[in-house]
C-alpha cells in the first residue's frame, strides 16, 4: 500500500521550514532604530535637574526631523561630582527596555518594528522615569 505523500514527521519538517522562511522575511522587513552614528548631527544632550543630586538626561536622535532613537536616564551625582546612570530606558536592539538599579537583566517594554513605535513609546518611557525617579535614586544609593 502506497504511503501518504507526507508523514507526520515530514509535515512537521515542512511546517518548520516554512515558518523559518516567514520569520526570515519578517526579520528582513523589520525596522530597527538606526545607530546614533547614522543619524543627523546630534542636537546634544538634554538635562532636567530634579534635585541637587538627581537629574534626567536624555539623548534624542532624529532622521528627517523625526525622532528615531531616544534614551532617557535618571542620573545620580556621585561623591566625586560625576553623573552616573541609576535607571535608563532606551530603544537599542529594536526593543524599548529599561535598565534598573541592581537588576542583572534588562526588562523589555515593547518591540520596535516601525519608526512610529519610537515616538509612540516616548511619552510613557519619559513618564516612567519621571514618576519613579526618587525610588530609582533610593535603589541606586542602596546598591552602592
Amino acid at each position: 500500500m502506497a504511503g501518504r505523500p507526507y508523514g507526520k514527521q515530514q509535515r512537521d519538517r515542512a511546517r518548520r521550514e516554512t515558518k523559518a522562511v516567514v520569520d526570515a522575511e519578517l526579520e528582513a522587513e523589520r525596522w530597527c532604530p538606526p545607530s546614533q552614528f547614522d543619524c543627523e548631527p546630534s542636537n546634544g544632550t538634554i538635562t532636567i535637574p530634579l534635585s541637587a543630586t538627581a537629574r534626567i538626561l536624555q539623548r534624542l536622535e532624529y532622521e528627517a526631523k523625526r525622532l528615531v532613537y531616544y534614551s532617557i536616564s535618571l542620573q545620580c551625582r556621585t561623591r566625586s561630582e560625576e553623573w552616573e546612570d541609576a535607571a535608563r530606558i532606551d530603544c537599542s536592539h529594536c526593543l524599548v527596555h529599561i535598565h534598573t538599579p541592581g537588576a542583572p537583566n534588562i526588562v523589555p517594554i515593547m518591540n520596535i518594528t516601525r519608526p512610529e513605535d519610537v515616538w509612540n513609546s516616548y511619552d510613557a518611557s519619559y513618564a516612567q522615569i519621571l514618576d519613579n525617579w526618587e525610588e530609582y535614586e533610593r535603589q541606586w544609593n542602596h546598591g552602592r
Partner: protein
Amino acid sequence: MAVDDRERISQATRTVANWIAESSDHCDRLVTTNDRGERPVVLALEDELFSAVAHRISWTDGPYANLFVLMNDESILAGSFMPSASALDDGAKHEFDTEFHRDVRMGEIVRASAARNDAVAIRVTFGETSADFASMRDLAEAH
C-alpha cells in the same frame, strides 16, 4: 514647594519633553548650553519667586538653563537664563529693558520681556545672584 505645584511642574515637564522630542526643529530651539555641551531645561511657575527658580537652576552644571515658565492660564513660555557674568563681555555696553534689584515673581520677568525678540533684555539681581533673561516666547508659537 506645595504638592500641587510639584505636580504642575511635573506635568509641564512632560509637556515640554514631548514638545522637544516631537521634532529636531524644536530641539534646535534650545539654544542655551552649559560647559559640557548639554542643554539644561528648567521648568518654573508664573507665581514662583526668582530666588526659588535660581536655586533649581543652580543644580545644573553651569548654571545656565533653557527656561520654560508655566503661566496660570496653562500656556508655557520659553526663554533663556544665564548668569550675568557670562552674558556680557567686559567691554560690552548693553541696555536692559528692565532691571530688578529685588526678588520678583517669574510672571513679572515674563511680562517685562514680552516685547523683546532675541536680545538679553532683563536683569535680575537679588543678593549674590545676578541673572539675565532672554525674551520669553510662547511654546505654541515656536512650532
